[in-house]
């Protein structure tokens, strides 16, 4: 047993609130407004009502409650669809007005970071096309993927700072009969969950107080254009991003800290697809095993496609090598949905996950065997043609 090297959370002293005037980075929004004033682009404003949160250097960020255009994630929708389904379900539970568009492409950044078969103009044009598609509906982009979120922040800076790139992108947009639009804020869904965490906790119907959760923050959430990520003086003394930890604490769970908190999951973009020896080794030996040794969590909670995939799927092969693994991995959206009473298969779709989650469900007070029988009943109805698709109403049937 390796002795824990992590610093107790209670030892982190609360520093004074950061002063935005001392921020070491620019506030890109001010330049966006100037460019809009000059007729160079349109800035889509955050619709009200919105919730104000603090970002790393003390600036205020607006998180829209609703009127959101859900920019979905390739990996979530493709391979862990309970992730996206849980995000939508949470919005529906609060009666939020949202759009799940078909007029959306991937940000294509997973491919870009993996293969480099693209360039700055193409990436900015793809981003701008999606932004324009959202703008045309009147709904505001809510980004599901951590990489899309980080890449769009990079792209926003490039559009602002490089006039020639901006001109080329505007020319391409003109060929599509679309304006060059940039949202006032780039908003990740986990920021919405963070901003809504007290309201989510009020609707909690399952007791999570006996659960220890280790947090994995997504690299592209807080390491790319770092000043846009949410920080909170009441969470880690404002020294780490507050997103994800905030909702886990609000739901009454214990946060199991560990010394490799800042390490990435091992996704690697190209590695997870064609060089998985790296992803498997890193995910299990630098993350899961360290968590097990230092915090022994019941679950890992994270907030990005690649992190859930890598941390969850890598454990099977590690188990074959008798490694100290075996911790289920969920997104914050799935965790919050389960707390609010979501069905583990109809909504959270846990059968798409690889690592055994049944002990976790039992600790949540969920009879997973009964729930699976209910879901199998749905599958029989689908197979027989009684229903073509499982509806939201079916999924919430008692």
């Amino acid at each position, binding site marked *: 047993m390796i002795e824990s090297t992590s610093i107790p959370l209670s030892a982190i002293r609360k520093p004074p609130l950061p002063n935005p005037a001392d921020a070491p980075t620019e506030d890109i929004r001010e330049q966006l407004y100037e460019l809009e004033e000059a007729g160079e682009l349109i800035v889509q404003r955050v619709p009200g009502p919105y919730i104000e949160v603090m970002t790393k250097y003390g600036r205020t960020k607006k998180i829209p409650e609703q009127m959101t255009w859900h920019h979905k994630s390739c990996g979530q929708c493709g391979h862990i669809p309970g992730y996206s389904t849980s995000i939508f379900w949470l919005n529906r539970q609060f009666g939020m007005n949202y759009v799940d568009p078909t007029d959306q492409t*991937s940000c294509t950044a997973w491919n870009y970071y993996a293969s480099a078969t693209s*360039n700055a103009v193409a990436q900015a044009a793809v981003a701008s096309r999606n932004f324009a598609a959202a703008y045309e509906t009147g709904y505001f982009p809510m980004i599901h993927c951590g990489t899309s979120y980080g890449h769009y922040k990079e792209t926003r800076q490039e559009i602002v700072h490089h006039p020639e790139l901006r001109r080329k992108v505007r020319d391409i947009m003109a060929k599509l009969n679309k304006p060059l639009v940039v949202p006032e804020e780039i908003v990740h869904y986990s920021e919405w969950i963070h901003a809504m965490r007290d309201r989510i906790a009020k609707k909690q119907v399952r007791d999570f107080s006996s659960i220890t959760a280790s947090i994995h923050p997504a690299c592209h959430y807080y390491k790319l254009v770092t000043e846009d990520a949410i920080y909170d003086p009441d969470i880690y003394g404002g020294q780490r991003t507050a997103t994800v930890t905030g909702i886990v604490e609000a739901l009454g769970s214990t946060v199991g800290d560990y010394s490799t908190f800042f390490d990435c999951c091992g996704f690697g973009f190209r590695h997870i697809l064609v060089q998985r020896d790296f992803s498997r080794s890193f995910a299990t030996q630098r993350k899961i095993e360290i968590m097990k040794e230092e915090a022994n969590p019941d679950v890992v909670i994270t907030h990005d496609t690649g992190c859930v995939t890598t941390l969850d799927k890598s454990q099977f092969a590690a188990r074959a090598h008798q490694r100290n693994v075996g911790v289920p991995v969920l997104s914050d959206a799935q965790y919050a949905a389960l707390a609010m009473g979501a069905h583990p298969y109809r909504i959270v779709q846990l059968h798409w996950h690889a690592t055994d989650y049944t002990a976790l469900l039992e600790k949540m007070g969920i009879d997973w065997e009964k729930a699976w029988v209910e879901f199998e009943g749905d599958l029989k109805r689908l197979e027989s043609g009684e229903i073509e698709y499982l509806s939201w109403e079916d999924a919430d049937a008692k």
Partner: protein
Amino acid sequence: MSVTAPPARFTADPGATLSPHSYLDVAYEDKLALWEEVKADDRFADYLYGCYECGICVAACPSAKFYDFSPRKIAQAAAREDVELIYEQMNDDVWNCSQCFSCNRCPRENSPGGLITLLREVAVRNGLGTAKEALEGYGRVVYKIMTTGTQISPDMLQPDAFPDWGPDVEKTSDNLELWRRALPPETLHTTEMSWQVSNETLIELYLIWLHSDVMDMIAEADEGLHMIILDVMEETLEDAGYEV
């Protein structure tokens, strides 16, 4: 600093300071041209400000823990404009990077990961053999993202593609169509793309690819893949009344 001629130490005794993989058969001028292409990118100035050699980027880097790889060496070679070493890195190192950008915690605000993005892009655009090797087996992903507008699809979950993910992959694959219909969001019922993307949206995406030189990059990386993607795009665009 502008480099116009090989540094003296390379011209005097090139082999003495170079590793066994230094690509001595490639002319210095060709290596220099690639480096100039990297520097000409608008983003280059945002990614490099100098290097303290503090090693914080290496300590944070997942790839440095697994491979013989160092983001510090990437930043240093770029700062020194060590054209020979940069060419070597462009071939032997850049594809090891995880692109997580943990190295962005650099106290000089360098982004070694960003530099690697540019180095990779130039390697692909110029059809370097090592870039083609790195992308072997990746063509189906490029095809998927460029033709469907989504990176991966449910039907990619095949046991022979993901044997290390355990037996559940086969179960998912066997039940795929049924399980997709058991998803409440309507956009997720598809098995061939991550979510349903409208035809009009795909047309706009194809126009972006055609107007942003991406197709030229694909042609350099994989000529066969380029032809296949172009065929799909042309058919859709011509059906919609566009002249390609």
